[in-house]
């Protein structure tokens, strides 16, 4: 039955998808085009829609694909499927960490993990910068328009109380008007 299949395929994607939305998109593409469920053209639509709409990219993609294949219940099956492994794994991990937090071994490991995690988030900033105003082929050439939005967002987030959502929406508006 297609709903059960959708659920299982997306549960598998949720279980093997490391590294967040963008890498999960690649896995979704492989799993679904190989099964002949969607074409590459449809996939690029899904990728574009998922990035331009609010919410986690992989949830967006799961909902969209699920709807295309199985209608409303298809989108429910795919979205629940992709979230179920997270639910189990994260709660197990959280229980472990909260239980052993006072243990010196765990606390010293966490002290090593925290700076590393901040580095990953910094790396995400680089990733978004590469996608918008830095060109790897010509690193000295900066796309100044988006760079100004970037600088504006940094200033607004660091020195004003402007809501983060509003900052991103303003950058989006600026992109529409000026790019």
């Amino acid at each position: 039955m297609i709903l059960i299949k959708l659920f299982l395929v997306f549960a598998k994607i949720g279980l093997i998808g490391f590294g967040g939305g963008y890498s999960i998109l690649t896995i979704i593409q492989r799993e679904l085009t190989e099964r002949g469920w969607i074409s590459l053209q449809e996939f690029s639509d899904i990728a574009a829609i998922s990035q331009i709409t609010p919410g986690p990219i992989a949830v967006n993609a799961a909902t969209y694909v699920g709807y295309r294949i199985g209608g409303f219940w298809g989108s429910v099956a795919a979205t629940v499927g992709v979230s179920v492994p997270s639910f189990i794994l994260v709660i197990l991990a959280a229980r472990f960490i909260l239980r052993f937090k006072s243990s010196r071994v765990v606390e010293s490991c966490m002290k090593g993990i925290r700076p590393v995690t901040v580095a990953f988030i910094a790396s995400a900033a680089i990733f978004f910068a590469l996608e918008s105003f830095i060109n790897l082929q010509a690193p000295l050439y900066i796309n100044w328009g988006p760079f100004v939005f970037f600088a504006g967002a940094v200033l607004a987030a660091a020195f004003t109380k402007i809501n983060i959502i509003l900052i991103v929406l303003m950058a989006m508006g600026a992109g529409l008007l000026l790019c």
Partner: protein
Amino acid sequence: MKKTKAALLWDLFITFFKIGAFTIGGGLAMLPLIEREISERKKYISKEEIVDAFAVSQSLPGIIAINSGIYIGYRVAGIAGAVVTALGVILPSFIIILIIAILFSTVSGNIYVTKALTGVKAGVAGVIAVTVVRLGKSVVRDIFALVLAVLAFVLTTWLGIGIVFIIAGGALAGFLYYYIMRMKRNDTD
């Protein structure tokens, strides 16, 4: 005054619903908002614990925003908390995408979509950069942590080493440095 459980769950749900409904650019773009809402404004958990949540979210498979939501929900209000935060993050996307899937059939290659995406990504890069500094201040407290952070940044950005391996390396380094060093120091005291 302590909040009742129901009020707490409702607040968690609404907070994550808002985060899910308004952040464009995917889960990574949500991290700054989660940090500001959950730690800075509502003080549900400390900055260190926010970083723990992000560490768990990134080292496990799955969607980073959902993972962070589940971790924080569980930490603040147990299993019920995890359920409401997960639902909160998922529901807005689900509703919006369903409407789009019903109404439109194709958007890729649309010039306005590309323009909007360029703007969003530049803005998200800026907001994330600021979050890095804020979290870094509370987490990177000594030279050793700074070295770890720089090393991890280089490994993941330019060498493409898997996040899971780097986190395992960070845990090992933390154990060796903070645990063993402290034992030695206690010995000599």
